[in-house]
């Protein structure tokens, strides 16, 4: 016998946690799954030997502490059918049934290829933050942070707290964009306070606008980077380079389930109505998945989805105004941190694009779509299933990401053989 739930929530970040708590508050039997061992998603990822911020602790406790919520950590969705998801946990594979499904799978970083980006010691910006929070040694390490967006500052704060020597934060957006962004921040006092707090923690660390890392070099690992800034090229010797160009939604499961997507810039996100309903009956989506919006819109949309999935339309209606306000902040981010065309032209002919299969940019010439490139070069056929190169190629304007195929993540054979009729109806 397998488990079935009234409401099954995928992803235990701010959106999924809020959805689980809201649905359980209406008496629904809720299953909350996440591939990670801890709840909190990206922003509330726990740090080794450190208690999280109060907001995070409250958000996590409201869901995990609710008797109506079954918390299923280290559980990854690998496949789907109408009314049930195939999941894998350390014990094996099984199907989980649901009446309503809330997708809250969040976002990953947009990682763009440049010469040297495959060297050990080159990570994403949020990537370095996530690694550091789980004990990656940074004490005494010379770190360069680069890319775009407020995540660079958050990553820098975490790295410094872990003892890194920050050589600088290099933001690709120009100074005039950032000044305009900062002037509008007063309408979101929480964000303004957060920005001030981060800047105070980064006192003495150079923050340079209009600057792009063009190249990383080193023997067995990164030893230096070349930064192209308003005052020309600069070479910086370092031990680590953390570089991320913003975020893109993890739409793979939604796409497999047939939910309609819409384009947000070069990348797809899940299309929903004001009640977070997707185009598929009984399936809701919330948070970064519906377009990059950050923690606040994720929490609000999660709660809206949870109320709606449990049948409380009034609850969902009450949160519309704050949700719109939070989303407007995201629109500003998008505008002011728009990518400079320079960053789409960093890869050279021999720069590896598909890291899983070592496919260089030149091998993709002449292919009009992802499918043809995949068949000829194996680009996107490796373990990450095109999650890194697919996002990069879409951003580079080569070709858009195409369909999702099961299994969504490499899974054990025994998981794929799990009997689909063995879940119990709620």
């Amino acid at each position, binding site marked *: 016998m397998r488990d079935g739930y009234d409401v099954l929530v995928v992803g235990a970040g701010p959106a999924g946690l809020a959805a689980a708590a809201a649905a359980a508050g209406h008496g629904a039997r809720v299953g909350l799954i996440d*591939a*990670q*061992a801890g709840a909190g998603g*990206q922003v509330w990822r*726990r740090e*080794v*030997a450190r208690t999280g911020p109060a907001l995070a602790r409250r958000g996590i406790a409201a869901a995990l502490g609710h008797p109506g919520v079954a918390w299923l950590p*280290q559980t990854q969705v690998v496949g789907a059918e109408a009314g049930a998801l195939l999941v894998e946990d350390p014990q094996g594979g099984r199907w989980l049934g649901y009446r309503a499904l809330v997708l809250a799978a969040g976002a*990953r*970083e947009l*990682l763009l290829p440049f010469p040297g980006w*495959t*060297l*050990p*010691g*080159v*990570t*994403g910006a*949020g*990537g*370095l*933050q*996530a*690694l550091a929070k*789980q*004990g*990656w*040694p940074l004490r005494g390490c010379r770190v360069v942070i680069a890319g775009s967006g407020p995540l660079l500052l958050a990553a820098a704060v975490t790295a410094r707290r872990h003892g890194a020597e920050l050589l600088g934060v290099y933001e690709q957006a120009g100074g005039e964009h950032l000044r305009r962004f900062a002037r509008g921040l007063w309408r979101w006092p929480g964000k303004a306070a957060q920005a001030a707090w981060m800047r105070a923690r980064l006192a003495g660390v150079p923050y340079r606008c209009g600057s792009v890392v063009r190249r990383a070099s080193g023997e*067995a*690992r990164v030893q230096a980077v070349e930064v192209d800034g308003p005052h020309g090229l600069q070479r910086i010797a370092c031990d680590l380079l953390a570089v991320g160009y913003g975020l893109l939604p*993890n739409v793979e499961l939604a796409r497999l389930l047939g939910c309609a997507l819409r384009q947000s810039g070069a990348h797809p996100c899940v299309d929903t109505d004001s009640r977070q309903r997707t185009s598929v009956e009984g399936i809701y989506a919330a948070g970064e998945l519906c377009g990059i919006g950050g923690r606040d819109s994720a929490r609000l949309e999660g709660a809206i989805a949870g109320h709606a999935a449990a049948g409380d339309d009034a609850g969902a209606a009450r949160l519309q105004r704050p949700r719109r306000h939070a989303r407007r902040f995201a629109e500003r981010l998008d505008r002011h941190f728009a990518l400079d065309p320079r960053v789409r032209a960093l890869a050279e002919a021999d720069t590896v694009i598909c*890291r*899983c*299969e*070592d496919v260089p940019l030149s091998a993709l010439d002449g292919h009009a779509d992802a499918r043809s490139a995949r068949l000829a070069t194996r680009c996107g056929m*490796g*373990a*990450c299933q095109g*999650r*890194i190169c697919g996002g990069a190629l879409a951003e580079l304007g080569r070709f858009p990401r195409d369909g999702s195929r099961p299994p969504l993540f*490499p899974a054990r054979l025994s998981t794929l053989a799990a009997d689909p009729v063995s879940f119990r109806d709620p």
Partner: protein
Amino acid sequence: MSAPVRLQINGHGVEVPPGTSVAAAIARLGLPFRRSVQGHWRAPLCGIGVCFECRVRIDGLAQQRACMLPVREGMQVWTDA
């Protein structure tokens, strides 16, 4: 602070605080992670289970993402080194 977790990486014993990821434990020893299909060294990129650059063998299971797994007492980890 709670007691450290002991595990083995490529046969070396290592002690780390509970909650540390396998990836971080490998990095503390300064060991490389894996070789790409063309034989180049690779190490964690995304930190969140998406890129698969941190794959190692754990307790006999190949292709495990080291960034996703907290250390466990007695774990046996092998990198491509």
